[in-house]
């Protein structure tokens, strides 16, 4: 179970804005093994999110053109028809995003939204799926899971919503979890809790984790490997220890310097 799970090669994403073309992602190449944690770091607009969305064809159709290769468990995802891609989304590759409160649908209860994923991929009945949703919420460390399942996103805190989003992502036991700045909108204490939770669930369920952040401090805690992105390119991609010991690229040094400055407080 330690083979390569995801292999991204020469991935390009170009956005067209009228006549202007913007290269958001340029020849990005990296591999992820099973159970590995890859932290992708970089400043806002460096192409981290776009890379992660391109892998599963989640970029707006028509506006973005994606080329290159992303093989997941041996299957090429770039250029795969929508209907086939859908079988990967949620089921084998799951996502959580930055603002849990806006990524959850305001008009459906938490339980319903988790149960939807369960029903979709496991074909469970309504009641069984709801019971499973409550169980998933408990696994994500929510004490009163029954009540949380009945609640709507606006009734819960950001941290609770993120736990709900994590439950939803893990509903189908994915092989890869892509977490796009999942703690950026949370306060420090909650951030630490959510990261601890993710690492515990990763231990238990054994998925690979692609963690996107602009905060290298998180990388130091959780990463096996670190990839640094800068202006659409992957400028450094190495084992964590190596990277922290001897950063090569100027941007990595900048990020590390910023981290150390904050670290001194």
């Amino acid at each position, binding site marked *: 179970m330690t083979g390569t799970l995801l292999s991204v090669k020469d991935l390009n994403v170009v956005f067209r804005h009228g006549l202007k073309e913007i290269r958001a992602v340029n020849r990005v190449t990296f591999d992820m093994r099973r159970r590995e944690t890859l932290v992708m770091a970089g400043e806002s607009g460096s192409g981290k999110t776009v890379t992660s*969305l391109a892998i599963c064809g989640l970029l707006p159709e028509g506006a973005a053109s994606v080329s290159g290769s992303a093989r997941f468990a041996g299957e090429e995802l770039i250029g795969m028809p929508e209907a086939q891609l*859908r079988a990967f989304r949620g089921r084998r590759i799951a996502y959580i995003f930055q603002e849990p409160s806006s*990524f*959850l*649908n305001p*008009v459906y*209860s938490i339980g319903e939204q988790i149960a*939807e994923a369960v029903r979709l991929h496991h074909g469970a009945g309504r009641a069984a799926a709801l019971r499973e949703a409550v169980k998933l919420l408990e696994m994500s460390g929510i004490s009163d899971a029954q009540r949380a399942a009945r609640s709507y996103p606006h*009734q819960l805190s950001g941290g609770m919503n993120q736990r709900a*989003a994590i439950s939803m992502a893990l509903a189908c036991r994915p092989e890869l979890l892509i977490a796009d700045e999942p703690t950026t909108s949370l306060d420090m204490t909650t951030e630490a809790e959510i990261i601890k939770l993710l690492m515990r669930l990763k231990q238990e369920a054994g998925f690979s984790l692609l963690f996107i952040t602009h905060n290298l401090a998180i990388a130091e805690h959780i990463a096996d490997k670190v990839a640094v992105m800068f202006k659409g390119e992957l400028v450094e991609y190495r084992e964590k220890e190596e990277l922290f010991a001897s950063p090569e690229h100027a941007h990595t040094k900048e990020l590390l310097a910023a981290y150390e400055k904050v670290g001194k407080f």
Partner: protein
Amino acid sequence: MGKYILRRLAGIIPLLFGISLLSFAVINLAPGKPVALENSLNPRVSARALERLEKLYELDKPVYERYWHWLKRTAALDFGRSFSDNRPVIEKIAERLPVTIIINLLSLFLIFAAAIPLGVRCALRPDGMLDKVMTAAMFFLFAIPTFWLALLLMNFFGINLRWLPVSGITSLNYEYLSPVEKVIDLLRHLLLPVTVSSLGGIAAMARYMRSSMIEALAQPYIRMARAKGLTERSVLYKHAFRNAVMPLVTIMGLSLPGLVGGSVIFESVFAIPGAGRLFYEAVMMRDYPLIMAEVVIVSILTMTANLLADVSYAWIDPRLRDKR
């Protein structure tokens, strides 16, 4: 929620008072009197007879006194008798109201049934071919005066093509038709009026639905829904649609008075014996009791429908449920 409904119901009473006061003032300020008709039709009527007539209708008393009398009677649910034929006003309205309500409900249904899919379709490909054609068509429909369009359609379908009847609500031989034929006859008569009264609403609602759907589709939870692996159908009709349709319910509630007011125009154009035309006739004859009763009843109906729209809004949006 129950408290909220009670509060809203209580709010109807002062509103009704204001509406009736204004209507009473306006109709009395307007030139012409109920007795003018008898007067001008019969030039030999004597001054004394006129005076007796005025006294009979209580027109010799000042406006505020008459309003007070009217208010007291109406509070006891007595709407009085019509000036024109001395029949109880409530009876005349009860005869005419069902047709108007049916036409308005059908229009409302047609507006929703046509505008929502149209708006959604346009929102899927903004600035696509369909969207451009629909946008042009909608502004065109929005700008056309209803009564004029009604006359054009009557001329085309009723007189040129002879497909549809041009006026009334039943054919002359209605009594002799079988039940099935009766329904068909009714529908044939209702087709043009219902279409005409909904066109403007469809145009406006489809525009609202379009922009509302475009906005919903840009929300983060749509990306989440796609990332979950849901089919495009589920993403659109479960996750985006319910959020997009909410503002429409409010707009619908707000546009109800316009729909009801429109009844006055198209019922006159199509010679439909409904409450709208009754109101028009009452105004023309300065039949004060009938005018006032119609104003009150139609106001109550409109406000109830409005309340219903607001309650259903809270029912679809859980965020509002908590606030009230």
